[in-house]
């Protein structure tokens, strides 16, 4: 199973990288861009675990290590692998 995890800043937390990319896109003429959030993407391969169990385990991984929940929020999906 593959957990695809996105970690991004919570709203209200200053994201200077996102802001810089936002301005760069505007400079390139993409005037429709109203905001950019820059975050992290992780793929975690899991083995020997049911999808129900994985839901809880991945949440625990995010809370304990992969995200700093003071400043970041996370979301993830689980996909079967061969």
């Amino acid at each position, binding site marked *: 199973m593959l957990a695809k995890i996105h970690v991004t800043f919570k709203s209200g*937390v200053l994201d200077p990288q996102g802001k810089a990319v936002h301005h760069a896109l505007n400079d390139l003429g993409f005037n429709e861009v109203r905001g950019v959030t820059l975050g992290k993407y992780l793929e975690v391969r899991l083995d020997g675990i049911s999808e129900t169990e994985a839901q809880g385990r991945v949440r625990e991984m995010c809370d304990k290590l*992969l995200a*700093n929940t*003071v*400043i970041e929020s996370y979301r993830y999906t689980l996909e079967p692998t061969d």
Partner: protein
Amino acid sequence: MKCGVVVFPGSNCDHDCYHILKHVLGLSTEWIWHKDNADLDRFDWVVLPGGFSFGDYLRAGAIARLSPVMKAVTRYANKGGRVLGICNGFQILLEAGLLPGALLNNRSQKFICKTVHTVVENPDTPFTRHCGKNAVLQIPIAHQQGNFYADDETLKRMADHGQVLLRYADAEGRVTEAANPNGSVQNIAAVANERKNVMGMMPHPERVADPLWPNLDGQSIFQSLIHSGAS
């Protein structure tokens, strides 16, 4: 008086701290390797020095706080032992949940290495006792992730409990936006836990504490710990 300096893989201000404590201040000083989970009760305080523990992978301090020594540091802090985290040490204490808030990338996205001024906001702690209220300390910073953040509720709680110890200021001690080097909320440069036995600071006091150098402002932090007596 006995103090310990914790060494993580990637610590690089550990020798500076050790030098100031042992050779300049004449304290009995020991190294503590990050794999060591033994009780720290023999120390009057321990220092988590600056550097790039575990390459700052994932987030600065995120991996280091899982090192066995952090279990010992947490037990020590919970018993009232004094812990000083400098720069990367501050980041590790935040990740370990021993201090409130978090540190983001600098507003400029750049690594900043320069001498700044900070003003002492709360001199009634073991880390600032020797300073006096509104004393201005000129101490260098050197970091990429030193932009302190806490939500409004946390900031209010910190203010109510006098947990902000240093703020970035100008040479006269005025807390201004122009004197804020990295975007830290309310110019916060150093914080303590509610009990005031754990402090984290981004500026490097060990870099301005050797009499070979004219500026000795960093000694105030270490002298405060000495004047606070045994842990």
